[in-house]
């Protein structure tokens, strides 16, 4: 019932255009609009190498949207090329950004221009992460039962299809996100709760006790990893260095994004404006009023201490393509 009351508050806030926090939650800094994204398109990921170089990517049915925060304001980035919708972005400093998206699209920013990199797939790519500029992984898949999931690797020169073992889990046709601590400790999560772990130079399928989709994964070190997802209900799965522990967070709908700065807590966002801070030891959530009833898809904390979450009216692939971007300061313990 706490959940219900909170969401009702969020709706009221959205209706009256007010994002003030609930008086009952003074300890958590309040979320407010990062910029007005309503007419821009969906925003699916936010990431940046520094507090004054933050990117949010997304788009609409057919085209990409890239927004950049320079420390003072957000503005739209002119890509200089045509690109389908972008889903995720990651990089290694100001001059080495990689964004992936629909139709196998990979865009690279080298500090001077965005260029499209060739990939051996036309399937949507949902996630990208790398241990080094010449060691990136991109994952995706159509989510269509007739097509396999996609995993690509960048070796510094070209994208190539990566080999992974035949999955034991049936019906997996999409990997959604990839994250790791280094070249030999990488996780891929995806459809129907599939998890692949790379160590010893090879991928292995792991079983984390989750039946629903795992949409995102993040962590701080090899012993503190959190995967989140679920479509109908929120699902979380934690790796503590010894075992996976999975849990359904009954009162919350599906989760889409996770980011961690400390090993003790994770910032998690999801459907219907869900914003949670999750105690990694107990997997107990603390709810925050994000101020939006729209779906949040990604959350990221920048070096300047800002937490930013982005999303939009994401449920229907046919639109509308309304975006949302909210932000709040982080406390020192988060």
């Amino acid at each position, binding site marked *: 019932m706490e959940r219900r009351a909170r969401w009702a508050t969020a*709706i009221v806030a959205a209706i009256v255009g007010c994002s003030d926090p609930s008086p009952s939650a003074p300890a958590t800094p309040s979320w407010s609009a990062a910029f007005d994204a309503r007419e821009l398109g969906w925003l699916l990921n936010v990431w940046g190498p520094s507090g004054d170089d933050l990117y949010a990517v997304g788009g609409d049915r057919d085209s990409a949207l890239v927004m950049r925060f320079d420390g003072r304001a957000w503005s739209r980035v002119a890509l200089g090329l045509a690109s389908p919708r972008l889903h995720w972005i990651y990089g290694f400093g100001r001059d080495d950004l990689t964004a992936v998206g629909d139709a196998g699209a990979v865009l690279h920013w080298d500090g001077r221009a965005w260029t499209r990199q060739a990939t051996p797939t036309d399937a949507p790519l949902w996630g990208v992460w790398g241990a080094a500029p010449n060691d990136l992984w991109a994952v995706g898949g159509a989510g269509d039962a007739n097509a396999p999931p996609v995993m690509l690797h960048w070796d510094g020169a070209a994208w190539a299809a990566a080999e992974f073992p035949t999955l034991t889990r*049936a019906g997996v046709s999409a990997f959604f996100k990839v994250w790791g601590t280094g070249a030999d400790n990488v996780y891929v999560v995806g459809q129907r709760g599939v998890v692949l772990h790379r160590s010893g130079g090879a991928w292995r399928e792991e079983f*984390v006790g989750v039946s629903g989709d795992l949409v995102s994964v993040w962590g701080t070190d090899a012993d503190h990893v959190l995967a989140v997802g679920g479509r109908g209900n929120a699902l979380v799965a934690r790796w503590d260095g010894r075992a996976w522990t999975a849990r359904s967070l009954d009162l919350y709908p599906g989760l889409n994004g996770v980011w961690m700065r400390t090993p003790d807590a994770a910032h998690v966002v999801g459907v*219907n404006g869900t914003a949670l801070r999750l105690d990694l030891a107990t997997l107990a959530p603390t709810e925050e009023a994000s101020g939006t009833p729209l779906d949040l898809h990604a959350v990221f904390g920048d070096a300047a201490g800002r937490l930013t979450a982005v999303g939009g009216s994401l449920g229907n692939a*046919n639109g509308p393509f309304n975006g949302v971007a909210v932000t709040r300061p982080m406390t020192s313990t988060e």
Partner: protein
Amino acid sequence: MSFLHSLRRWGPAGLALAAACSDPAPEPTIATGIFAAMGDVRPNATPEQRETFARGLAVARRRFTPEMGLGPTYNVSSCTDCHERPVAGGGGARYRNFLLTGQTLPDQSFTPTGVNGVLDQYSLATGRTPTPARTNLAATRNPIPFFGVGLLAEVSDAEILSRADPDDRDHDGVSGRPNYDRGYVGRFGRKAQTVSIEGFIRGPIFNHLGVTTNPLPDALKARLPVPSAADLAHTRQAIAGLAGERQTSQAQVAAPDEPTTDDDGVPDPEMSEQDLFDLVSYAMLTAAPSPDAPTAQTAAGRATFDRVGCAACHAPALRGPRGLIPAYSDLLLHDMGAALADGVPMKLATGSEFRTQPLWGVAATGPYLHDGRADTLDEAITLHGGEAQGARDRYVALSEAERAGVLAFLASLGGGAQATEGLLAPDAPAPSPGAWGGPLSALTGEAAARFERGRRLFDRDFGYGQGLGPSFNGDSCRACHFDPVLGGAGPRGVDVTRQGIFDALTETFSAPAMGTMAHRFGALDARPAVDAMANVFELRQTPPTLGLGLIESIPASAIVARADPDDADGDGVRGRARYLPDGRLGRFGWKANVPTVREFVRDAMTNEMGVTVPAVAGESFGALADDDRARDPELSATQLDELSAFVAALAPPPRTHGDVTLESQGEALFARVGCAACHAPSLPGGDGQPVPLYSDLLLHDVAAPGALGVVDGPAGAREFRTPPLWGIARTAPYMHDGRADTVEAAIAAHDGEAGASVRAVTALDARDREALVAFLRSL
């Protein structure tokens, strides 16, 4: 009123309800304006809502074709295929069971296979859908009735949660915990896995029909009978008139917001937003089954029901914004024990947990339990386990009279007057002589009574205790032969599947050792096996049984006289008579493999229903014994007589005329283009009168060269008995596998011996083709 007062006197329920209410408001009373006969609209619906209800019912009854979006795989072709018992909106008999399939993994997580976990039986491309790879778990499901779901949707989460006791803190052995869907308490489905009615409808439409939809836009959601829009102001306004309710659930807003899509070539969405709105509204507006006034027996039964502990889960009423909703369910999950467990987790529900099934209308919505394993309510109660074990044991220990009282009480919870052994309404009169489904001639006295007994038997759903199985396709004759009337044809969704082994190297066909029948149903929680070598699966459309008695009367000599197996006349049309090993002429069935009506009935009872038949001198077909729990023969000699007599007495479909001139032109064309060479307009009946069946009852090769099919004895893979054309306007789809939805498509689907006729029809101008079709539709 006495019913309402009786309900309010319930101790435990009354206490729980009082506890849920924190102010001194008057004790809630039973909601008014919600009860009606099953299938009716709620009496409190507005005129506008009644119109929406009627439109939604029409959508529910709409039979989808591949051109309308059915497929690429499917189980049924309309909503009311499954939700039909005793009327639209209800449950379904066992021939509408389906399988949930999935894969249980080493970590006990569960991955659904098939279409979101539903195994579709049929494929437009391959006939029978193969079981998905890596499936290691199957669970039988029986369709669930949805009367009164709009009222359950209005019950707040808090009301449901007020009964939850997940840790059994009161140590009564009954816990009960909620399922959740998108952050709200789930309440629909066998595992309470769905919270929104829109989701509860869009999911099955896609999973069982392959019909795609978009989520309802907010503007339409705002107009649904149950508040469903993510707009607090609207929700408040919508409930403003509901006295006594201080808050309502906004759970209906939590509907899936993803479109469903498929690749069947029909543009998505295959159902319009307006149709979906009407359908969701219809479901929301279905009335709660009207309970009977209590009698001394039912009142005593109700007391016993409470005393043995049934009411611990089957809570007599939930508090909703309109008052008490007497669904007899707490809408919570309960562990029902290992014997009932299906192994399928759904959201928070484990493989042994099920939502307490509402009991309103239970008398008319058997079979019972999630997989329909129980024929009767008594059996259903005795099969309860887990948290219900104590109540079950106390029930079993009751005297016979006390048990009868409980059962009488359950039967009083609505729908009793509509309950039948099949789908025929209790007072449904027999159609007139000569009409669709009526007898050949007027019947009186014992003849009429015998026809009626046969008709009821034809309609009756056979339970496991009555001999159904061990393998079956339908659980009644009507299960397949109901279109457009009892005794008629069957649409997609009740097709029989035949299997065979084709050796491409030698181009030879062999029948599997287990026979060519690939049954749809067998043991619970499993799909009947097919031969491991089977590589040809062919659907068989249900042919109508109307007029079979007249066909039986046609002398064999009249049929054989038309045979020309070697095409001696050089017209390209042969026609082979099929003789059985005993020398008799076959005349019924797609392969002309059955000689008489009685043997047609014997064959169907065994092959389609798994019901054994009595030994009768001179009659073959049908099994005399099987290995299920019912004593053989499962059909008595009297029943066989009455059933056979009923079928034999059915009149052929009556002709209906439109533009007589056009039809006359079409009739001439029918002969001119050569259709009549096989579809002989008439054959002489036993009394010498012509039987206008438009068939020669011979085998013809009418399939495309190279087409694979299932051989049946001397009938080749591409050979089929010429089907009679009477009644063709109302017995679509056509051809042996139902590939054609229109008469025009059926003509075009002919090949082989009929190739020349097809080319002749193709050469006709539009007006002539119109005349030909008009003639055929007049038959």
